[in-house]
């Protein structure tokens, strides 16, 4: 459930593409008005970012911005969520609760996933939008609300109207100022800028250098179809910063869906991978990386027990001690990395086994 928005507009990256520049020109104009806006775009294209931007640039910026995803609630819950309820309206309604409309009074209400609102609820929503007043569930009084409505939709709403799954009157009520966000695959020219932005941000958060992207990774990015759009790219950049231990991101750091998605892509005109002159690789550095990675792994899975770790690595305990010293692994760091409570503060990827690390990435919430 989202009350306050998670996204910040201080770091909005636009990109150079003509389509995004047009969007931002439109946002500048639309933000000054009070009319209803509908933002359409696939999942992950940044509808909430744009909604937040409209709010922050407009005259209501000092008033609340309330974002709510209509897809999160069941048909009955959505009504109490949006309009609130009175005490005793239903079992468990022990006190009065204002709805999102009231909470956004004076400010902006972002109704995301408006296309997921059930038909029966659409009527009530339309009434609220038309009359600018709401009635709490179980209440009798009408409460006037002054909110600017921004709706977000990921499906083609006109098509839903034609199919009878979305009320035409509600659509026309919302469709005063439409903003269509292009999917990432239709503005590939923005990829380098977005990648740089996300990598820099995540690297800064973890206080590590920004990793370089290998030619194969750049090639894969340019061919992948990005079904999850900017959000997918953002998550991938986060993963890259987490996994990249050697300063250059090679294809192995990509998720297999990106790698194989790019390999199977039939996008015309994508540049083939660049076979530049082979770059020098320090064998000693690479061997040290592998060595230190395996030692950290062994120490982590044995909870810092050097004898057991040495056994796992098939070397003598005294040899392990020498190598730990040579790789500059501090025992304290390894012990705390082995501790689950501190697992997040671990800066070394090699400290976890690849499988558990990968699971952690898969489990990362959006």
């Amino acid at each position, binding site marked *: 459930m989202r009350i306050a928005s998670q996204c910040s507009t201080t770091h909005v990256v636009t990109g150079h593409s003509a389509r995004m520049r047009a969007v931002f020109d439109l946002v500048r104009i639309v933000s000054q008005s009070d009319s209803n806006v509908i933002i359409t775009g696939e999942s992950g294209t940044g509808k909430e970012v744009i909604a937040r931007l409209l709010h922050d640039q407009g005259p209501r910026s000092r008033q609340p911005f309330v974002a709510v995803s209509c897809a999160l609630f069941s048909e009955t819950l959505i009504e109490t969520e949006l309009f609130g309820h009175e005490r005793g309206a239903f079992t468990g309604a022990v006190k009065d609760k204002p709805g999102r409309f009231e909470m956004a009074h004076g400010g902006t209400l972002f109704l995301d996933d408006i296309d997921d609102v059930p038909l029966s609820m659409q009527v009530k929503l339309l009434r609220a939008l038309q009359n600018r007043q709401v009635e709490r569930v179980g209440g009798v009084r009408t409460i006037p609300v002054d909110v600017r409505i921004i709706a977000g939709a990921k499906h083609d709403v006109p098509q839903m109207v034609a199919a009878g799954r979305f009320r035409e009157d509600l659509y026309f009520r919302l469709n005063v100022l439409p903003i269509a966000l292009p999917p990432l695959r239709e503005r590939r020219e923005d990829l380098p800028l977005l990648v740089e932005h996300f990598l820099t941000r995540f690297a800064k958060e973890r206080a590590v250098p920004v990793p370089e992207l290998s030619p194969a990774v750049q*090639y894969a990015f340019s061919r992948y179809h990005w079904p999850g759009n900017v959000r997918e790219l953002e998550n991938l950049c986060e993963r890259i910063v987490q996994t990249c231990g050697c300063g250059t991101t090679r*294809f192995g750091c990509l998720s*297999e869906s990106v790698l194989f998605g790019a390999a199977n892509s039939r996008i015309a005109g994508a540049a083939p*991978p660049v076979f530049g002159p082979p770059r020098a690789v320090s064998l000693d550095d690479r061997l040290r990386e592998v060595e230190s990675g395996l030692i950290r792994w062994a120490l982590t899975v044995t909870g810092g027990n050097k004898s057991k770790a040495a056994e796992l690595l098939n070397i003598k305990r005294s040899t392990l001690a020498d190598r730990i010293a040579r790789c500059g692994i501090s025992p304290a760091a390894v012990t705390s990395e082995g501790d689950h409570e501190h697992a997040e503060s671990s800066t070394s990827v090699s400290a976890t086994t690849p499988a558990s690390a990968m699971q952690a990435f898969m489990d990362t919430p959006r």
Partner: protein
Amino acid sequence: MVPLRERVEAVIDRIRPMMQADGGDIELVEVHGNSARVRLTGMCAGCPFAHLTIHTGLERALREQIEDFGELHVL
């Protein structure tokens, strides 16, 4: 019927150019029954994430392309 080895090679060939661009490569060591064994070489050797990405990704791609494909072993 195209031999299994050739069908596995065809799937591998889709990702090989990207691996080679990064200074790595992949070698089909052996096809045994319905399963295959590959080896990562060059820059990919010893990278745990390359290993994992190839293992899960290639195995899935092989299963999509080849009916009753068994297991992929990455050396």
